[in-house]
């Protein structure tokens, strides 16, 4: 990221280190994103108007659209029941009748992958919404409130940041029990600190901007200044970063369901498919391979799109 990034520069002015998230730290993932971002030279598609279509990005969009379709209406993509078990058909390798093979209960892996999109996307979206919503409130309160409030909130955030996301989510699940909604909330809460810190840093930048000063001088009500001027300007870059956070939360959700904290069987879920499949790695590789590929592609697509938005918002797209 260039220093022109409003978030980074805001953080710099606020005297803060760069936040730990939300860009995935995995070097392999960074390398893949780098590939997706590389502009294509001499592409015939680049001649269409001003827009340069990057195939990587286009693929990411198409994959995301397919995912959304699978989440909204999985039965349009597959006519096979993801719960139709037939023990005698278990562990069949990919073939013309089962394109991606069958699992340990003889169920079609492709159908389960497609029906598993909804919980995965739901995990990413809802938990990010929770994290963002609470994060905005805490961040605004810290950035605009009195020093005491700021100090209290930021120390709390520091404490929460000391725990890795996954650990924090596990603590919450341990206290409030298992289930899809608890897991969603747990992952959401675990992402609050990241967002709260970004919102606070951004608010500190916007708070002293001339247009805010002008609105205050004109005698606008304080609430109106916050809602009409501070919030929209502070939030924009964070919303974009939140899309990348969705990918991160999908991974956290899959990790939790891999550890057995997701939906109970026989619900199709990518993380639990992986967890079951790992015992059969040596003799039924397809049980692990396909859910892994699905998770990687989903996260890479969402992250690529988010980063593209980020670049555009900085006015230096393409």
């Amino acid at each position, binding site marked *: 990221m260039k220093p022109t990034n409003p978030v980074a520069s805001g953080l710099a002015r606020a005297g803060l280190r760069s936040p730990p998230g939300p860009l995935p730290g995995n070097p392999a993932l960074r390398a893949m994103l780098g590939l997706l971002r590389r502009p294509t030279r001499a592409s015939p598609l680049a001649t269409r108007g001003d827009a340069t279509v990057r195939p990587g990005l286009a693929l990411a969009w198409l994959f995301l659209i397919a995912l959304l379709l699978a989440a909204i209406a999985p039965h349009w993509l597959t006519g096979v029941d993801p719960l139709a078990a037939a023990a005698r058909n278990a562990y069949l390798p990919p073939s013309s009748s089962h394109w991606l093979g069958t699992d340990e209960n*003889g169920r079609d892996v492709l159908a389960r992958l497609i029906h598993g999109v909804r919980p995965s996307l739901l995990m990413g979206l809802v938990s990010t919404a929770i994290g963002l919503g609470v994060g905005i409130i805490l961040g605004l309160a810290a950035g605009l409130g009195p020093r005491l409030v700021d100090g209290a909130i930021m120390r709390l955030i520091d404490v929460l940041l000391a725990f890795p996301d996954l650990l924090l989510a596990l603590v919450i699940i341990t206290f409030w029990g298992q289930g899809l909604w608890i897991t969603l909330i747990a992952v959401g809460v675990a992402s609050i600190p990241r967002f709260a810190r970004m919102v606070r840093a951004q608010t500190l930048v916007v708070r002293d901007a001339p247009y805010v000063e002008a609105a205050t001088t004109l005698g606008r009500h304080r609430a109106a200044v916050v809602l009409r001027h501070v919030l929209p300007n502070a939030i924009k870059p964070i919303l974009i970063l939140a899309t990348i956070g969705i990918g991160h939360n999908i991974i956290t959700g899959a990790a939790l369901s891999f550890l057995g904290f997701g939906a109970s069987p026989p619900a199709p879920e990518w993380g639990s498919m992986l967890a079951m499949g*790992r015992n059969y790695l*040596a003799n039924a590789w397809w049980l692990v391979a396909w859910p892994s590929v699905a998770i990687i592609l989903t996260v890479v697509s969402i992250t690529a799109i988010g980063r593209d938005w980020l670049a555009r918002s900085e006015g230096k797209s393409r």
Partner: protein
Amino acid sequence: MPINHWSRFGLLLGLLLVSACSPDAPPPSSVQRVDGHLDAQGLLSYDPSDYHETRQGTPGGTLRVSAALDTGTFDVHSSYHGNVQWLARIVYDCLLYQDENGKISPWLAKSWDVSPDGKTYTFHLRDDVTFSDGEKFNAEALRVNLEHMRDPATKSPLAAAYIAPYVDGRIIDDYTFEAHLREPYSPFLYVLAQSWLSMVSPKQIREAPKSIAEHPIGSGPFVLQSYTREQGATFTRRADYHWAPPVTRHIGPAYLDRIELSIVPEAMTRYSTLQSKRSDFTLDAPAQNTAAMRASQNLVVRNRIRMASPYRSLTFNTLRFPFDDVRVRKAVAQAIDRDGLAWIAGFGEFLPKSDYLAVNTPFYDPAYRDVLKYDVDAANRQLDEAGWTARDAEGYRVKNGRRLSAHLLGFESPPFPSSVAVAVQADAKKVGMQFIIEMMPLAQLTDRRTAGNYDAIGGGYWHTNTPDGLYILYHSDSRASPTKSGNNLSNLSDPRLDQLLSAARRSHDPRELQALYSAAQQRLTEVVPAVPDFESQVLIAYRTAVKGLIFDTVHNTPFFTSVWLDQEAP
């Protein structure tokens, strides 16, 4: 090239958009890979040489062993863990053993007499046995051990129940002990041969019973050197050991210098360490990898059956709706495809089962093995007869406005992986019955079990070396109550079955026992308290450098005293 990108996309979209239709594949080959000889009548017999040493081994070396689970304690009297079957044989000895044909044979007791009324047992003990702390094994040691088993402080879940009819003992002389029973109890000698009833140093029991859990002192062929919970243990040979059971034909100390046991919960790791020579032996060979292991030149797979009760796919609570109706229980039993279950859990290693005793149990009667066999039409007929004729929108049967539905509780474990729960659910749905699966941690399951708050519980097996396992699981005396624990999870109380199983406990006559146990096995297929799915099997694998392996006649698990490592050992 952009074209490549677009074609890749087309492929991706194609994969996503087209639905795969699936005609049923042929059922997996049901080649049975169980050790031993399974005859046409369905009876299993093992080669006698599986149980005794056939040639002398070379002393020395360290055997690296892996197992899936930690037993958590070496105080075998306080445990019911399955690992005790082989673990106790490393550090302890038992009073008795069994021969190749299942008859009781000597170990620490040279001989014994049973009074005509079946209530007094006199044991004549060996006089040359010592524990590793120097204590002598004698009549007093035996008395102290029996007391420790039934001491409430031991909290024994198994040993105490097995010797429940024992009232008191009399020390006649240093090496003669007389045990008095409350009532005739023919399994008494058999249970004394089981690992859970091993002999612990009387000094340790008297002075520091708590220390048995981590620093056990036994009279066995090896001494525990170190133990780290959930990680492993190291055992070293006892040089002065010379009292292996005569049946094993092993003379003198064990061949191995050391045994290093590692606890490896990951199936893949147990397989790969064995394959890459980082371990020599696994006591829990993953069924999914046995095909590869059998194909390997350097590995040997053994597949043995434990006596008594086979694995159950589920046990019904016969007091609760809908399983208070025997027709519903029978229908579920007939609806579950045991061949399918054996395949998904055992990859062709497991022997499907629909009756209530393991094929190698004494007095097993194969006559009723097909009464509850997989038969969807029969299951549907049973449910129709029981009045479950209407169907709701989801295809489930309803009667008087109530859906034919039950909760199936389970704990993720080798006898009951969630894939088996899902298969049971899918099979039941095919006959219009709904199972709601609830997989939960063991502690939560135990609570629900103790409170009697369940419709059906998945999994479970009961291994013992006599058909009296049926009494433990299905006699009305074995029901749990607020004041006593019990293993009759079905809460079955059938006067006819009770009468047969009680009579069998009093009898020593093989012909009478055969008649009683045959009738009991028949009765079980009529009252259907549970659905057996496959035999309870011991799958082990080891490198070919491991020689001299024999099996325990009591548990059919490895007996390490006679194991030795060949010259080519890594």
